[in-house]
């Protein structure tokens, strides 16, 4: 699993670190790490519905922040639990653009083993970096 939960940070909330070989994959891995806080077995989420996500930000780390927030928005507003299928990040004139498809289904407490509800992504120790060719994200979620 290319992410791990960090136990010693923000006692009442949940922190994780995710990593991947490519930036595109990092966005997918980080979003899975967040969804996995809410649904214990990610494979139980059926791809019944898809959403095309298009987001842009002047800062790359804030683009990841926006994508994670987008998934939280669908969960609260529509009870839709989504996972990223694919992600593509491009830079154009100093602006970063994200395009990706997220698939999932309505939350079903009978089939989905639900855990803690993620209510927000925090800026506390929020980092996105590339260390020796490996993309890395450090995220603290509000529970």
């Amino acid at each position, binding site marked *: 699993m290319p992410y791990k939960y960090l136990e010693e940070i923000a*006692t009442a*909330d949940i922190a994780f670190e995710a990593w991947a070989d490519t930036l595109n994959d990092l966005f997918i891995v980080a979003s899975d790490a967040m969804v996995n806080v809410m649904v214990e077995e990610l494979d139980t989420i059926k791809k019944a519905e898809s959403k095309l996500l298009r987001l842009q930000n002047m800062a790359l780390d804030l683009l990841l922040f926006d994508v994670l927030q987008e998934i939280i928005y669908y969960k*609260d*507003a529509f009870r839709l*639990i989504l996972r990223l299928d694919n992600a593509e990040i491009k830079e154009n004139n100093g602006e970063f653009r994200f395009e990706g498809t997220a698939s999932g289904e309505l939350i079903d407490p009978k089939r989905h083993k*639900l855990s*803690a*509800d993620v209510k927000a992504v925090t*800026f506390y120790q*929020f980092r996105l970096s590339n260390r020796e060719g490996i993309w890395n994200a450090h995220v603290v979620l509000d529970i």
Partner: protein
Amino acid sequence: MAPPSQIIKISNAVWEIPRSYKTGMRVPARIFATEKLLNQMDEGVFEQICNVAMLPGIVKYAMCMPDGHWGYGFPIGGVAPIDSQDGVISPGGIGFDINCGMRLIITNFTHKEIEPYLQKIVDRLFHSVPSGVGGHGVIKFNRKQFEQILLTGAAFCVKEGFGVQKDLDRTEERGCISGADPQKVSGRAIERGINQIGTLGSGNHYLEIQIAGVNNVYDKTLARVYGINREEQVAIMFHCGSRGFGHQIATDYLQTFLRVMSSKYGIHLPDRELACAPFNSPEGQDYFAAMKCAINMSFANRQMILYHIRQAFSEVIGKSASEMQINQIYDVAHNTAKLETHIVDGFPRKLIMHRKGSTRAFGPQMEGLPEEYKPFGQPVIIGGSMESGSYLLTGVTSGSASFYSTTHGSGRVMSRRAARRMFRGKEIQKNMALHGIYTRTASYSGFAEEAGPAYKNIDEVIEAASEAGTCRPVVRFTPIGNIKG
């Protein structure tokens, strides 16, 4: 984790980290805790409270309460009195769950009288007050009604028949803070919140049926004022906030503040989560008006939950809520920023009081208290872990030292993941049943995360809060039924 070596003992339950500890601190940091609790605090608490001491306009001290633990931006239990003329407002000093708070209800039942109905009531409430991931309320409101809720809070619910005037009289701000402006709230926030009225949420949010034990009434006179006058009397306590609505407002404005904080206002802080803007700036005032919408939404959320409690008791027992004297004792928040006047160095100053995981605890005769409670001080409602107990306390005159702020819970000592590794939800549930506590949960892993040992000892936290002169205990409650998100 040991506190910083520079910490100075002010009294048995008050400690001070001087300004010299960290460059940029404008005031010292004060921690209200016994030595034992101080030594239990994680290093994040000390670093974060010293960062809070760097906020422009902070007055006297950045403070942390006895239940303090490592949060984001502010520590949980963090308090910042900030001058309203030349200071800032910071969403990180309020928390994402704006106006998260506690409501305490009393009934005229004793433990013995309620026992035959307990499971049915808990089961009924488990369905009518949804909890856990993605919970939507049973009673829906349309967009127009939701906007009325943002403007008038719990008063809207009472007007619609979901409560009585006395509920409002016994709620902080009478359940409706003035100055809320829905125009300052994003469409996303409304979409996230519109279906969440009447829901608990998850994490440490809960609804509990409790008993005021005979030996746990510390001030019989005041307990009687609150309607606690029978042996083993049944109470209901619940904890929740403004759900996704408040979170979206906090997220929206944190991003706004990050854009202007240094570029427009020249403010530099060590943590982005402390993003702020001058209170009197357009951005600061917009956030204040939007945050008030979340305050009102949260009061309405708790009002609707009270409505469902009355319904559940009525349906299961077959009596009306008034026959069963299901009366609200008080509703008080612990995640807010509010304008308050405090005496600072002998002079009154209007402050924007940030409390993140800290309960307001006004002393006797202070403005804003219900008339019936004014001679005694403000009721303070503090929830412990689901396996231990909770407290009803009262604000005291000596609370001025903490700007009338106190603890909000027992405070975690173990991370969620560590608790989940150590405990099994189903086993805890069985064990609690053996101790006479009937529970329902939306998530067994979430239940394990909330295990009693994951929290500090509530009695020690209350002892520290009392010793520091921030409040005084009136009644201790023990749980007999619990719904956990």
